[in-house]
């Protein structure tokens, strides 16, 4: 630690940082990236191990955070965790973002490493665990991921869930659940997951299959603020429209501040536009209790003319949307990867086929609902 001050022969460069107390250095390193933190080990001997006094680890296998091979990434994670465990270093926050895509052998290796790391984190007393896995659809990760305690953020892509679901899922701290391209082999799996997460604020489903019901409960999911359901298949649901109406009712009861729903099912089922209106109406109308406090609604693949007509009409009538101050419409520009405002009139007459995602921004007169969360990444 103190070596740096010993042979200070150069007149100009007085080392003002190496001598700082350890807790300050640790505070400084807390806010840099894992890469920048670990690289400080090359500065001088006294810096050799300072990075590992950080209580947060952020290991992310995505460009540009990690530019080398997956094998190397796995080794880095494994070594780092071993170091923290062997030296009994304090680890409070752990963020792991990993991809299992690759050949069969490396998949198996990744899964077995995850299987080793996850219980280790629990035993090391990690308080905040953020996990993102881009899986391989042939891998069933149930037996691995559902052991993860202290998970706060969980993002799972491309995976099937079904077998080996433990009796109790320890997701009591989970706040954000993002599931993309997940195949649920049976409904119990999904029910079990969401009934184990009382602190959820964000539920995000994208292109999931096998979701026949979504049972949300007023008492259980009282913190729910953001709900997204996009591109999910409901072919196996007998009456998709009814299913959506039921879902809308659940959402009404919970009144999250942000809802994104996908109407692609209706195109498949060729349900007439007026039925869509019923659905949009269902989301807004809370049977005499005033409008649901939705501050942000995204509707994809919906017949725009019908829904715009509906929203306009509603506004004129001033009934369910009586507190609506402003409605703006934005399209997602895939080339620029950002939302662009569009004029309602332009939308109605222009070619709509190129637009894949549209969102409405609703401004309620109640100032408490003005803030539009940044949710789309």
């Amino acid at each position, binding site marked *: 630690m103190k*070596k*740096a001050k010993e*042979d*200070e022969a*150069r007149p*100009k*460069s*007085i*080392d*003002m*940082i*190496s001598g*700082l*107390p350890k*807790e*300050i250095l640790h*505070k*400084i*390193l*807390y*806010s*840099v*990236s894992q*890469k*920048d933190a*670990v*690289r*400080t*080990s*090359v*500065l*001088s*001997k*006294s*810096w*050799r191990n300072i990075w590992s006094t950080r209580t947060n680890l952020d290991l992310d296998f995505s460009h*540009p955070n*990690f*530019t*080398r091979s997956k094998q*190397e*990434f796995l080794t*880095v994670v494994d070594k780092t965790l071993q170091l923290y465990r062997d030296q009994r270093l304090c680890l409070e926050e752990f963020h792991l973002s990993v991809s299992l895509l690759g050949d069969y052998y490396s998949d198996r290796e990744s899964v077995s490493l995850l299987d080793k790391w996850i219980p280790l984190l629990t035993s090391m007393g990690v308080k905040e665990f953020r996990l993102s896995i881009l899986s391989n659809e042939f891998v069933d990760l149930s037996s691995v991921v559902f052991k993860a305690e202290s998970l706060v953020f969980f993002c799972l892509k491309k995976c099937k869930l079904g077998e080996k679901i433990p009796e109790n899922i320890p997701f009591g701290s989970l706040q954000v659940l993002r599931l993309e391209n997940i195949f649920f082999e049976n409904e119990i799996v999904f029910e079990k997951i969401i009934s184990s997460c009382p602190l959820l604020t964000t539920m995000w489903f994208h292109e999931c299959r096998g979701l026949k019901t979504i049972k949300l409960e007023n008492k259980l999911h009282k913190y729910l603020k953001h709900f997204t359901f996009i591109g999910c298949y409901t072919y196996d649901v007998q009456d998709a429209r009814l299913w959506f109406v039921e879902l809308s009712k659940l959402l009404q009861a919970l009144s999250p501040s942000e809802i994104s729903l996908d109407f692609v099912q209706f195109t498949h089922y060729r349900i007439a536009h007026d039925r869509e209106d019923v659905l949009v109406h269902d989301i807004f109308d809370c049977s005499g209790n005033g409008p649901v406090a939705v501050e942000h609604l995204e509707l994809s693949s919906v017949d725009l003319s019908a829904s715009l007509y509906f929203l306009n009409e509603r506004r004129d009538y001033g009934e369910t949307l009586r507190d609506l101050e402003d409605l703006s419409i934005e399209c997602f520009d895939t080339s620029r990867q950002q939302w662009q405002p569009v004029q309602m009139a332009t939308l109605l007459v222009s070619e709509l086929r190129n637009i894949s995602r549209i969102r409405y921004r609703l401004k309620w007169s109640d100032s408490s609902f003005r803030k539009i969360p940044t949710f789309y990444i």
Partner: protein
Amino acid sequence: MAAETGTPTTLTLKSNDDELFSVAESAAILSVTIRNMVEDGCAGGVIPLDNVDGKTLASVITYMNGISAIPADEEKKKSYRDKFLSDKDFETLADMVLAANYLNMSCLMDAVSAKIAQVMEKKSVGWVRRKFGIENDYTPEEEAAVKEEHKWTFEGVETDDDN
């Protein structure tokens, strides 16, 4: 204890080089160290701060006054902090982080630490050494070994002439 009377109480702080500063108690108690002294009744005379020099203390007091004048609005406080730190050189920042640590002022401590961290972002080892005056006491072999151990951290780093 602190708010018994209507008139604002003023405290006198003394730096380790014997400079005296007057500061409103309401601003000074942003420092948990000072607040504890006030609560323990040591505020009658002069509060000696043995680990802070006059130059740094003057700067910290400017911060105390500035930030406590802003009502509870985290965004405004943050922009004040950013502005306050924007023209400080590293030497001042290092003194300030030590003072904030001693005075137990978490908001200043966090802001200064983050500011120092920002300087290091994506910078090469050579650059950080020069910037902070860190002497490399590794032998070339040792340095190569440490580099090899953490070689993934050397990609995407700003290039440097003496790396």
